[in-house]
């Protein structure tokens, strides 16, 4: 389930000649910390970075495939289960190493995890594997992972998670703007 914020795509910020970024916030509504990606997408939708489409997705697989085509940068935001050594709220950024085939394989394998044969259960990793095989993988893919304490029913977030959501949304804003600036300089 995916819902894109299209307004800015047709609005004053969108420039077809400039690099294009897509941000996909993944998660499940009303499933506690599993909402992390969706909430970050909601925050970013208020004032998206220029030339950026923000998408909130509850089943990113097949729909993610349709969104990445033509993008220069794809950012995926998702929750990951916290562990004893990694408490809820901690977050990290992973850059998918597109130019290094072996490292890319390892990265995609670890993201994909379960090899499903169902389109409806296609995960983020599966979508990236298919994108790579189709030659659709953008030149840069970043994944922001926020560690989650609970995937149960409800809207309650674990302690520290809301603060991380705001922090990650701000960081993505800055990172995309900086990427846009560097890309523009490179192509000037």
């Amino acid at each position, binding site marked *: *389930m*995916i*819902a*894109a914020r*299209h307004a800015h795509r*047709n609005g004053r910020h969108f420039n077809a000649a400039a690099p294009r970024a897509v941000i996909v916030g993944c998660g499940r509504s009303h499933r506690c910390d599993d909402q992390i990606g969706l909430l970050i997408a909601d925050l970013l939708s208020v004032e998206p970075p220029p030339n950026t489409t923000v998408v909130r997705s*509850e*089943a990113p697989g*097949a*729909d993610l*495939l*349709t969104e990445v*085509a033509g993008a220069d940068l794809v950012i995926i935001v998702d929750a990951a289960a916290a562990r004893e050594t990694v408490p809820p709220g901690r977050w990290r950024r992973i850059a998918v190493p597109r130019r290094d085939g072996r490292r890319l394989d390892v990265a995609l394998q670890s993201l994909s995890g379960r*090899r*499903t*044969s*169902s*389109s*409806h*259960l*296609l995960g983020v990793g*599966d979508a990236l*594997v*298919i994108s790579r*095989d*189709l*030659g*659709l993988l953008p030149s840069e893919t970043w994944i922001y992972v926020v560690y989650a304490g609970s995937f149960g029913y409800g809207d309650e977030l674990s302690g520290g998670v809301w603060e991380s959501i705001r922090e990650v949304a701000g960081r993505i804003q800055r990172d995309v703007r900086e990427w846009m600036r560097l890309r523009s300089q490179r192509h000037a």
Partner: protein
Amino acid sequence: MSATRPITNGASASKGKGDGPASGTIEIREITRVEGHGNLSVRLDDGEITRLELQIVESPRFFESFVRGQRYDDVPQVVCRICGICSVAHTSAAVKAIEAAAGIVPTEQTILLRKLILFGEQIQSHVLHLYFLAVPDYLGVGSVIPLAKTHPDVVRRALRMKKLANDLCATIGGRHIHPISYRVGGFSHLPSIEQLQDIKTRLEAARSDLDQTVELFEDLALPDYRRDTEYLALKSDDNEYAFYDGRLVSSVDARPTAPADYRRRVIESVVAHSTAKHSRSSSSDSYAVGALARFNVNGDRLHPAARDAAHRLGLKAPCRNPYHNNTAQLVEVIHCTESAIELADRLLREGTRPGPIAGPTKFGRGVGIVEAPRGVLIHEYDLDERGRVRDANLIIPTSQNLANIEADMRDMVPRLLERNVARDRIAGRLEMLIRAYDPCISCATHFLDLDWVSP
């Protein structure tokens, strides 16, 4: 004796006594490449089927209960969450039922836009099923993941068509699933002329992708199987191939039944092995709904381009082969694309005019029926004097097909055993049969785990 050995697709099977197929049990755990969780259990004793159950093991979802007490205009936004693939159909059925209950008559422009978004949903759902779930069977790969390696052009084409259908739905409904501008009484937001023109241009450009899809399906060999059954679908009072409105007719009883009288046709019952109800009709113990049923009932009303495609694909009404539901889906993709082009053209010609959302003039009981991608979808609401839901009844296409799928399998398994078809191939046939109906148990999966265990 009970033995289990692995067979194709991660399934497993075991033989009956004496290594023969005359006795044994087929246990299919987690039917996959369908939506949700279901199992298949078949028991054979001396060549006779003594048990055949398509077990639906999903938890009940209680939508009919939790819309009780909701305001009439909140209901479509709640019930469209029943499905992430056919949310437009659920919205349409709910809105139509509530408008019937509240005495609201939508404008012609509203109806055109509703038909247009419904075309978009049919295209996106059928393309997803055909390319992501069905085609891997016929091209001999396990799923769309290896398909991207072996047939990248096929997957690229599928993605282009799905994206176009998603964008069509988003243009009309505000987002591509769970539409937000599609309201009781009208649309809260209208597409711009530029958006309609863009969609029309892209639909026209999709014709070459459709042509190549027909070429692909011309080369696929579908199982040769047929069984007489009843096919139920909407038939419109004008000459349209019905998706948005019409009355219920069937291949057995062509007398039209008004939506409000659907209970005369659709008789639900509870079975012990399924959390989804089964349905029978007033004429048959089971019946089929979906693309093939629509084709059998309305085939002569298809767009000429879709009729040509049906001819190329060898699909001719009446078709009794359930595997050809996939073929009918493809024919419908072409019909919906051409019809959407015509509708977009008409809206561009006539222009879109914002108008007020029509309000209720009464509150009572109303029924709305549309053709969801998987078949006849029925919503019924009883509203109290304040416009809040007192009672609701929702009948989804898959629950109507379950008894018919079981009947197909009850007919097919002995035929396959008679022909000494290997058990792993029987498993494959059953998987493909269930998949051909494109069932939506709740949130799809792919293959079958099959156990064939001795009694």
